[in-house]
């Protein structure tokens, strides 16, 4: 059974009275029951809870009126590192296997206030650490285009679910590419907002100076509609800022120019010999399409971008090592079952048993780079390199470029198990997306083709800070000109 709805069409039909939130929920839940298990997208699928949420949405519509609710009746799947009060929030980890969130993330409040409702919680790489969703304590997620392949990560569940039409939109989180890369692997749209424009309150922290929550959708317009609701300064998040623009959906609807007259920069460094030839071919065609749509192409350089993965893995793991120190089995979460342990053993057994391998590795790396004697060489240095990378991006934009265009991933989706043995191989698959997080810029991935074996390839557009508008209109124009977004996996 297919569900051919989008965020936009749901809102329209809710407002027209031809759909109710419960009907929408039921349709998606029905489809989920037959498919989710194959993909392993869902953690704790709670039908009753979902229907209660749908009723809540209906109630709000009744009280406020669907016309005043920008996401009236829209069901949303939530990555399991975002707190939904009363619901399990596991972060894909054994150490939070049974943890129930005690408060709602700000984004959840905003979505519900806008008439949307929570449909379920999604699988992910443990604590958002991974690029393939193979690091979950609850089993890997599979790519709906080919079950032997990874959906990308860490928001693998989010991307696979949306691609498989188990919801019109899912929330993911992006620290080094975790929304964009899985969006690209699953042939859908994924947007990482400018750092600070979407509240992180309620997002279980991984890399605090890099994390952002963002939408994964089937098309650009839907992403704009959800962004309208997600963005906004939050008193609970000291790093959040008021987006100076907003009104993304409206601006998109009113935009007539699209890519006409825009200058799109192509950073040389992303198109070198390291690029998979199939990805290269798709991107070549995409660049041509972008030109056809009226944009001017300009070659630019980001001289320090090759250091981005190194800088990222110092900064993100350092912050993560501190963020994950709270998981100690004392106040909540998993505690070792062994009896008669000393305090030290309690800490060590709990954490060693509760965390997976990748998480432990990154905690140790982060601990090391902050440790006495190494701070200057690693953490301090990485932050300086980060500033250089930010300035590179700024310089590129200053040279008259409106958008940068790159592949989202240097490779197409890979097979489950393919990259597990070599830590670097996995880390390097983030090379196109990581710099965007380091610089705090907004970035979007849109589908731009497929490999010969039918696997999706994504293109990334990057805009200056607070320029989601340009990002969205550019992506929208490309989407209209090419229609890759209309394809669905056959699942």
């Amino acid at each position, binding site marked *: 059974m297919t569900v051919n709805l989008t965020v936009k069409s749901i809102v329209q039909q809710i407002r027209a009275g031809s759909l109710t939130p419960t009907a929408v929920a039921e349709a998606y839940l029905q489809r989920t029951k037959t498919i989710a298990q194959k993909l392993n997208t869902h953690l704790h699928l709670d039908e009753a809870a979902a229907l209660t949420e749908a009723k809540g949405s209906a109630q709000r519509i009744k009280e406020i009126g669907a016309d005043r609710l920008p996401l009236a009746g829209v069901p949303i799947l939530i990555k399991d590192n975002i707190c939904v009060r009363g619901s399990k929030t596991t972060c894909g980890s054994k150490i939070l296997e049974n943890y129930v969130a005690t408060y709602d993330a700000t984004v959840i409040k905003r979505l519900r206030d806008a008439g949307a409702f929570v449909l379920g919680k999604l699988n992910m790489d443990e604590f958002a650490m991974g690029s393939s969703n193979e690091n979950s304590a609850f089993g890997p997620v599979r790519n709906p285009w080919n079950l032997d392949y990874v959906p990308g990560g860490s928001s693998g569940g989010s991307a696979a679910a949306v691609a498989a039409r188990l919801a019109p939109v899912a929330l993911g989180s992006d620290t080094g590419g975790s929304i964009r890369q899985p969006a690209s692997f699953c042939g859908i749209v994924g947007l990482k907002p400018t750092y600070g424009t979407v509240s992180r309150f309620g997002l279980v922290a991984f890399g605090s100076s890099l994390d952002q929550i963002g939408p994964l959708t089937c098309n650009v317009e839907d992403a704009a509609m959800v962004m309208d609701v997600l963005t906004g300064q939050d008193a609970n998040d*000291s790093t959040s800022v008021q987006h100076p623009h907003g009104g993304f959906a409206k601006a998109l609807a009113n935009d007539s120019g699209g890519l006409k007259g825009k200058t799109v920069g192509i950073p040389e460094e992303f198109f070198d010999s390291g690029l998979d030839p199939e990805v290269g071919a798709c991107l070549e065609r995409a660049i041509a399409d972008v030109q056809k749509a009226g944009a001017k192409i300009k070659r630019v350089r980001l001289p320090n971008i090759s250091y981005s993965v190194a800088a990222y893995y110092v900064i993100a793991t350092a912050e993560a090592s501190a963020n994950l120190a709270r998981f100690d089995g*004392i106040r909540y979460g998993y*505690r070792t079952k062994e009896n008669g342990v000393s305090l030290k053993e309690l800490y060590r057994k709990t954490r060693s048993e509760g965390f997976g391998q990748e998480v432990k*590795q990154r*905690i*140790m790396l982060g*601990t090391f780079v902050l*440790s006495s004697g190494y701070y200057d060489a690693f953490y301090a240095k990485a932050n*300086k390199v980060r500033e250089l990378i930010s300035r590179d991006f700024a310089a590129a934009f200053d040279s008259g470029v409106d958008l940068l265009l790159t592949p989202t991933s240097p490779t197409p989706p890979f097979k489950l198990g393919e990259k597990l043995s070599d830590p*670097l191989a996995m880390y390097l698959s983030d090379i196109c997306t990581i710099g965007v997080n380091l610089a705090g810029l907004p970035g979007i991935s849109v589908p731009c083709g497929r490999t010969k074996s039918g696997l999706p390839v994504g293109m990334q557009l990057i805009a200056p800070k607070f320029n989601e508008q340009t990002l969205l209109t550019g992506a929208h124009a490309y989407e209209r000109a090419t229609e890759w977004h209309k394809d669905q996996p056959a699942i």
Partner: protein
Amino acid sequence: MSRIQVDRELVRKVADLAQLSLSDSEIGLYQERLSKVLSYVEQLDSVHESLGQDWRPDTARGTLESSTPERPDVVLVSLPVEEAMRQAPARIGTAFQVPRIIE
């Protein structure tokens, strides 16, 4: 390999700091993996940055005009103690229980 000697001793020391206990084989595994990653990360050394004496990553955040946001000193309703304790793996009364801390 890495210029920093990632030996078993270092792995053990870092695991200790992070309150992780590793089996002997795990130490070997992480030694290998961390060594690889660290070796890659060490390339940061070769970056020549000309950001100037005064630029510091910690003070460069936000803007000169805006300070970290502040909230008024007004009491908000706390979590009911039942909620606070509900998921405690071990408790006595309304206190979290841990093995005897030796000072």
